[in-house]
């Protein structure tokens, strides 16, 4: 069996027993990246040399009889939203093109300490904002099941690289569905842990009360293996939870007798594709056959989830992204026409990454009056109030893409004087009602099941012209983040056209063991998760 066909659990076992070297495992996946990623674009950077060096060192360690970490020799792809001190970290944004963080994210440090081999950084929607990966400044990811379709987002590169066997496991992040939705559209398994279960230190912040890092893999068992390493308290993240980390992998494939799974009839409304509805109902039937009880429940405020999310997340984002001002790191605009470039000045990244400036940029004034760039001399003048403010405004205008700007603008508006109560404070109140729905539901059931997305993978370009249509893609996933609970998505069938369909389970805070056990049980009874796209099966 080729290393690229092996599960992550089998890979680390083989390396530990000496049946497979870390080097050979790493080479096998690097070869696949080289062969396939030209068509898929899942990686923003591949650290071939670093990965081979790490793998060789692990093999040396084993030969010398030194203890190996729990992920020894396991190639891992990491979403480019997590800081890596030895590889670029761009968040798929021109703002951070070429940026080298001075430190590793806590999750990356834990992966290295566990002797995992980081093969590269994966493509994503810019700053994790999007559900199709089309918002990447470095080109969209193509869904391995159909290259004309989106892989979902924002962790689309992580999902696609696992689906095409370019990595056995990947790290993603999920603010409103960014692990679960691409996992569903790419036919893999992705877990968004409880808020605070995994440290966010070194994850480029999008919406800090919603962001959570999680594993993406071909099965629940492989997700469990990865979660065991990355979960746990970190003094560097004040919101990370102190609860001990259970042995997720040891408690799999248990019986589901007595487990109560909630089904929300409102999920099966007019917007749900009939093929998706059918596959999801079949999955409920499979769980029932496995001994679980299916109970219809009501989530009365679920309909308000997307509107609530698209206030809370942009508000937090507008604050978090204020740090990109061209001062400390990231893109700085070249001085304008009236400000000649200083001989000693240098820029954070090569200028060729930036398209020619489309016309003059200038601050628009509330009165509708247009200022002449650089002309103003004071705070109340006609132009930017200072050269510093001009640098901020132009660096951000050049560095951020359209969706990121939209969300910064939306959040800034909703937080501005006169609108705060009507929008942000209102959304926080509805957020409490949404969380209460979950608390009430988990009095009656142990898990909540349902669709991940209303449709299978959509065509690239199909929704990119309509921001609101794209936001509605998040319908089934955003409430999990608003409530701070955990959720997992995994394949439960295929459309007639051969596209994977995802099923989602949600659980109370810290019930990851049950999420993983139920999914693992399902994956012992079905083989949807074993299907590979034609592109992955193609012989060398």
């Amino acid at each position, binding site marked *: 069996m080729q290393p690229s066909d092996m599960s992550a659990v089998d890979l680390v076992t083989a390396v530990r027993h000496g049946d497979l070297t870390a080097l050979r495992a790493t080479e096998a996946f690097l070869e696949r990246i080289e062969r396939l990623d030209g068509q898929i674009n899942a990686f923003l950077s591949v650290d071939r040399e670093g990965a081979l060096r790490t793998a060789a060192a692990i093999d040396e360690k084993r030969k010398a009889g030194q203890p190996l970490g729990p992920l020894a020799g396991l190639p891992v792809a990491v979403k480019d939203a997590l800081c890596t001190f030895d590889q670029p970290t761009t968040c798929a944004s021109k703002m951070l093109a070429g940026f*080298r963080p*001075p*430190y590793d994210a806590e999750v990356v440090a834990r992966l290295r300490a566990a002797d995992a081999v980081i093969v590269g950084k994966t493509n994503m929607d810019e700053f994790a904002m999007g559900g199709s990966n089309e918002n990447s400044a470095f080109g969209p990811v193509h869904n391995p099941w159909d290259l004309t379709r989106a892989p979902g987002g924002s962790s689309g590169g992580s999902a696609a690289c696992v689906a095409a066997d370019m990595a056995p496991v990947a790290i993603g992040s999920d603010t409103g569905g960014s692990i679960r939705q691409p996992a569903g559209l790419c036919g893999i398994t992705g877990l968004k842990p409880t*808020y*605070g279960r995994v440290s966010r230190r070194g994850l480029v912040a999008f919406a800090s*009360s919603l962001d959570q890092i999680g594993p993406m893999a071909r099965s629940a068992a492989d997700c469990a293996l990865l979660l065991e390493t990355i979960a746990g308290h970190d003094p560097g993240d004040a*919101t990370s939870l102190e609860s001990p980390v259970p042995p997720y992998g040891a408690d799999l494939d248990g019986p589901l007798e007595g487990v109560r799974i909630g089904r929300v009839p409102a999920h099966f409304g007019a917007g749900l594709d009939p093929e998706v509805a059918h596959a999801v109902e079949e999955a409920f039937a499979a769980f029932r056959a496995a001994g679980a009880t299916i109970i219809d429940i009501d989530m009365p405020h679920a309909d*308000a989830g997307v*509107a609530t999310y*698209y*206030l809370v997340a942009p508000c937090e984002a*507008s604050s978090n992204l*204020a740090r990109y001002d*061209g001062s400390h*790191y*990231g893109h700085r*605009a*070249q*001085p304008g026409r009236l*400000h*000649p*470039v*200083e001989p*000693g000045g240098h820029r*954070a990244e090569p200028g060729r990454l930036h398209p020619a400036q489309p*016309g003059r*940029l*200038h*601050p*628009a*004034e*509330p009165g*509708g009056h247009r200022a002449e760039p650089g002309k*103003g*001399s004071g705070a109340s003048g006609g132009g930017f109030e*200072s*050269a*510093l403010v*001009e*640098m901020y*405004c132009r660096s*951000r*205008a050049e560095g951020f893409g359209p969706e990121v*700007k939209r969300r910064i*603008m939306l959040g*800034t*508006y909703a937080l*501005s004087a006169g609108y705060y109560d*009507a929008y942000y404070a*209102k959304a*926080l*109140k*509805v*957020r*409490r009602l949404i*969380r209460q729905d979950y608390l009430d539901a988990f009095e009656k059931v142990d898990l909540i099941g349902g669709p991940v997305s209303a449709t299978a993978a959509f065509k690239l370009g199909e929704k990119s012209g309509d921001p*609101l249509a794209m936001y509605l893609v998040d319908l089934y996933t955003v409430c999990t983040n608003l*409530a*701070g609970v955990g959720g997992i998505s995994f394949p439960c069938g295929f459309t007639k056209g051969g596209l994977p369909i995802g099923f989602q389970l949600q659980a109370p*805070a810290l019930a990851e063991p049950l999420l993983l056990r139920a999914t693992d049980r399902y994956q012992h009874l079905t083989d949807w998760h074993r299907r590979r796209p034609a592109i992955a099966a193609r012989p060398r």
Partner: protein
Amino acid sequence: MSLSRNDVAKVGLLARLALSETDLDTMTRELSTIVGFVSQLEQIDTTDVAPLAHPLDTQNVFRADIPQPSLTTAQALQSAPRHDGECFLVPAVLGDSGAN
């Protein structure tokens, strides 16, 4: 709910985003649509509901006020667009200096 071009221009300034004339037109149209959509929350009765800013009942975390190892000056400056080895360099705040 629709935003005026002036509203959007003001928000652009608050957000420190330079917007071209075309940007202003597009943004006014798109933000109006999105704000119209999120305004549906008005219809939900939230009388006596307290805002929820964080999903879990977390408490503020304090640590002992003891210096810990952190980034060196060189590390902190390594990605700066401009620096002098000690400080980040930015254009002048006062006056119309050309430094950038």
